[in-house]
């Protein structure tokens, strides 16, 4: 089996190195181009901000979803249903074109009360705000399901112990349930962050200058399409690799008190090999 894998790997490497189409010198030339670096940086902070919004919305929606109050839980259900049920690309386009739906956005007391915000949609929903709204709201719906799974995974006895000590529902959630749920929530959240990093590339349809759009702008001029897509791929791979490492450390931090449940991730195994250690975490 290993022999077959090695033969296939060798032929792929040979093709990649020798085939002219890859134009490795062009790749090298553009890898650290300032426009590419700026695009990569935009991708990073957009991923970060959208995940912050997504996680915050996800926790709120998950707690609401588990509320005994039917109005609160169905509001959450509706939000999750809508944003999980429509393609992210459609949501991106929708937020960019929001100005054609509402000329003016007014936020305040409904039915004639005082307005807190009263702005034209075009100046309020800048491309940046639209990007954050699209990615953050969509992510919140997925995170809600992840957080809910985490909350449900916590033993019912923990809630009873907390309640028997006189802690309120909210204190129980914040101090007892959510910290334990994190252990279940974090691995899929790592995956979500990696997906998010790649999903920011969808913003290219709205001419938002993240990494992919920066790349397309260059190859639309010089027609070096494949080498520049390789440049983008290298950066995406580099950034997701950093996320793998971060995920390992965060998982280890939240594994406290659950030593038997700690598993070695691939990144963790490599890291601990580097330190001369054996298996990770255990």
């Amino acid at each position, binding site marked *: 089996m290993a022999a077959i894998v090695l033969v296939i790997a060798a032929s792929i490497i040979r093709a990649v190195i020798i085939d002219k189409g890859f134009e490795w010198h062009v790749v090298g030339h553009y890898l650290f181009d300032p426009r590419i670096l700026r695009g990569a940086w935009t991708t990073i902070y957009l991923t970060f901000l959208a995940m912050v919004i997504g996680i915050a919305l996800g926790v709120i929606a998950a707690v609401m979803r588990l509320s005994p109050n039917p109005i609160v839980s169905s509001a959450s259900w509706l939000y999750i249903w809508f944003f999980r049920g429509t393609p992210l690309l459609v949501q991106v386009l929708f937020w960019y074109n929001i100005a054609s739906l509402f000329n003016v956005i007014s936020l305040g007391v409904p039915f004639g009360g005082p307005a807190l915000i009263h702005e034209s949609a075009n100046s309020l929903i800048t491309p940046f705000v639209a990007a954050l709204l699209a990615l953050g709201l969509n992510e919140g719906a997925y995170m809600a399901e992840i957080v809910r799974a985490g909350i449900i995974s916590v033993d019912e006895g923990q809630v009873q112990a907390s*309640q*028997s000590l006189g802690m309120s529902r909210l204190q129980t959630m914040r101090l007892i349930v959510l910290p*334990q749920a994190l252990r279940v929530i974090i691995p899929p959240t790592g995956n979500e962050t990696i997906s998010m990093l790649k999903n920011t590339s969808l913003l290219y349809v709205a001419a938002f200058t993240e990494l992919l759009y920066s790349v397309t702008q260059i190859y639309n001029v010089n027609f070096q399409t494949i080498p520049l897509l390789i440049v983008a791929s290298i950066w995406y791979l580099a950034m997701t690799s950093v996320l793998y490492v971060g995920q390992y450390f965060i998982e280890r931090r939240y594994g406290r008190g659950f030593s038997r449940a700690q598993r070695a991730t691939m990144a963790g195994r490599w890291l601990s090999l580097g330190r001369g250690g054996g298996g990770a975490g255990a």
Partner: protein
Amino acid sequence: MVKAEGVHKRFGRLEVLKGIDLEVGRGEVMCMLGPSGSGKSTFLRCINHLEKINAGRLSVDGELVGYRESGGKLHELHENVVARKRAEIGMVFQSFNLFPHMTALENVSLAPVRVLKVSRSEARRRAEDLLANVGLSDKLDTYPVALSGGQQQRVAIARALAMQPKLMLFDEPTSALDPELVGDVLDAMRQLAHDGMTMIVVTHEIGFAREVGDTAVFMDDGVVVESGKPRDVLDNPQHQRTKEFLWKVL
């Protein structure tokens, strides 16, 4: 301290408590025995309103549990008011239910800080004393996963005592322990009874019930079959069901 009159509890169609009448005086220790499924644990959880009762009256220290009475009707209290009341009743569980993401000291000092608003340093000092009382001075910074079952249960007792409860409920506190670890937990409970704590203990430890209990109650199938002085109920049972049960346990 605790007074139950005609307490009924149903789970769907299943009637778990079929009219319980019991009374526990201040400083008394009541031990409840009976086969599993007889409703002992459910009754215990009704006392601190972890379960709502369907009929009857249940009061702790002269106040109804979870309800307010006005104009001859019962109104359920807001959950935050219920939480406050619960804080006055300590509970120890069969499966310990320590918070696994906190050290022994954090387990014990959490609720005093968050619920009673005691200062952190004061809560810490008291937690150290309580853990010392149950013989765990050297385990303050240990996480539950690294403690034996007996040690975990003693931390759980210290955690409940940290709220300075006026009543302690024990739900089969030694049933999940290896036999050689039972003694330490029973010692801690014995000491607590000696200090004058009012306690209701659901247990299969006949020896403990005989020695520490002021009253013993035998429950079966949702009703109290027999109750009285431990030496009467345990050594000279009047009812056939009590005899059969004790014969199996001893």
